[in-house]
């Protein structure tokens, strides 16, 4: 469970998050959507402690996001910008994260197997294709069986087969009661995965609720149309 209250963040004079209140429920896949610059990445980075909020509070499974990094042991994270040290092998990159988590960490190798990463583990990162690097990034996000998954455009660069494996894994994690927060610009993907939608509009929550309710709210049966309709309203308001 992720609970966010009155979260604000500005970069200089530009207010990026302007009082975000939000609950992301466990056992559901929540899609974070919004136009470019709406604050999606900043919100995700606040969750991970990469960006310090100006005010407000975030709690993940009851633990307050702050200076103590221990809360991040419950989080798995993958971004669309998967860059690893070029002279290390995929196995070494994986080993680093395992070492940092310590011996008590539960290891889930399922995605390494299903994404067929084994033949690439002893290849240096610089020799891996962009798609294989992204497979590695996604597999690392799930490696420690985290209770909370934060996936920022995880399918960017994945081939259709790998994407299908990823979606299966997300759905199985949901079935296990995990909290999944995902962003994507591929609406068909969100249509398949998302239970809830959070629509960010200029740093505020414009809509937060189930996909079903959004369809009713906008009058569009398809998610892509429904979200486009929300964005169109945003443009009119602006």
């Amino acid at each position, binding site marked *: 469970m992720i609970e966010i209250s009155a979260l604000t963040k500005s*970069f200089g004079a530009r207010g990026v998050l302007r009082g975000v209140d939000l609950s992301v429920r466990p056992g559901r896949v929540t899609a974070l959507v919004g136009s470019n610059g709406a604050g999606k990445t900043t919100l995700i*980075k606040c969750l*991970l*402690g*990469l*960006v*310090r909020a100006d005010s407000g509070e975030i709690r993940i499974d009851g633990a307050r996001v702050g200076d103590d*990094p*221990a*809360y*991040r*042991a419950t*989080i798995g*994270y993958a*971004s669309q*910008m*998967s*860059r*690893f*040290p*070029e*002279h*290390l092998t995929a196995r*070494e990159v994986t*080993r*680093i*994260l395992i*070492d*940092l*988590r310590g011996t008590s960490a539960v290891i889930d190798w399922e995605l390494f197997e299903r994404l067929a990463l084994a033949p690439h583990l002893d290849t*240096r990162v610089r020799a891996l294709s962009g798609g294989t690097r992204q497979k590695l*990034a996604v597999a*690392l996000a799930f490696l420690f069986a985290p209770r909370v998954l*934060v996936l920022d455009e995880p399918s960017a660069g994945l081939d259709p087969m790998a994407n299908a494996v990823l979606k299966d894994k997300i759905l199985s994690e949901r079935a296990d009661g995990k909290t999944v927060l995902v962003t994507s610009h591929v609406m068909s993907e969100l249509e398949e995965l998302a239970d809830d939608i959070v629509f960010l509009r200029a740093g505020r929550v414009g809509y937060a609720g189930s996909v079903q309710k959004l369809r009713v709210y906008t009058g569009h049966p398809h998610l892509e149309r429904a979200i486009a309709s929300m964005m169109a309203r945003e443009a009119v308001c602006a």
Partner: protein
Amino acid sequence: MRIVAKLAAFQLVDVLRSRWLFGYAIFFLLTTEGLLRFGGDATRALVSLTSIVLFIVPLAAIVFATVYVHRAREFIELLLAQPVGRSAMFAGTYGAMAVSLSAGLVVGVGTPFVLRGGAGVAGAAGVLVGTGVALTLVFAGAGVALALRTDDRLRAFGIALGAWACTALAYDAVLLVLATAMAGAPLERPLLAATFANPIDLARVVMLMHLDISALMGYTGASFTRFFDASSGMVIAAASLAAWAAGPALLGARLFRRKDF
């Protein structure tokens, strides 16, 4: 400490596998060997080597650190999304950079001297390597701080080159022009302060005071000798250089703890 060591170890492996560091070490190896073989007596070779170290080490350290931090940014973000504190992450990253660059210098400059049994100037060679390591720490710390402060890679790279040019090339020349323009004014104390304000000048003073060659100290360095005798001057300059070595790293650590990635 366990986490810092692990973070530093993998980054060290990454850096050591890059050809860049080997090129750096081999450059100093060939230069030192060439000067010892063809540069006249060992003291003269050491003086020439001092000029090269004071010129190349700050440039290599500040450029390498700036580029490394920018290139590693996405991976730093991934690591900071793990249960790892920022101070540990900074210490591991800076530590790996400082150790690898210093190792390149120590191996490159030190090996020819070791193979020649010190070549009669073992102590001075040790001082040169020590001042080179101190300059590595100063400029690697400055490079990290710069990369953290400036998100635009090209801009950071340009500032790094500018900072090096100001401290290594322009500093003495500008002071000389000012002193000439203000001839007759009591400038000893401002010039002494100017020596403390530039770590490259301090490193030059340490090295040349050890070799007792004040004529080669540069304009600011020469003023240093008017205030201090050889032994106290060298201790004061070395202590100041050590303080310089810590300063940029502490600034980098502070920026790293507060940075929005």
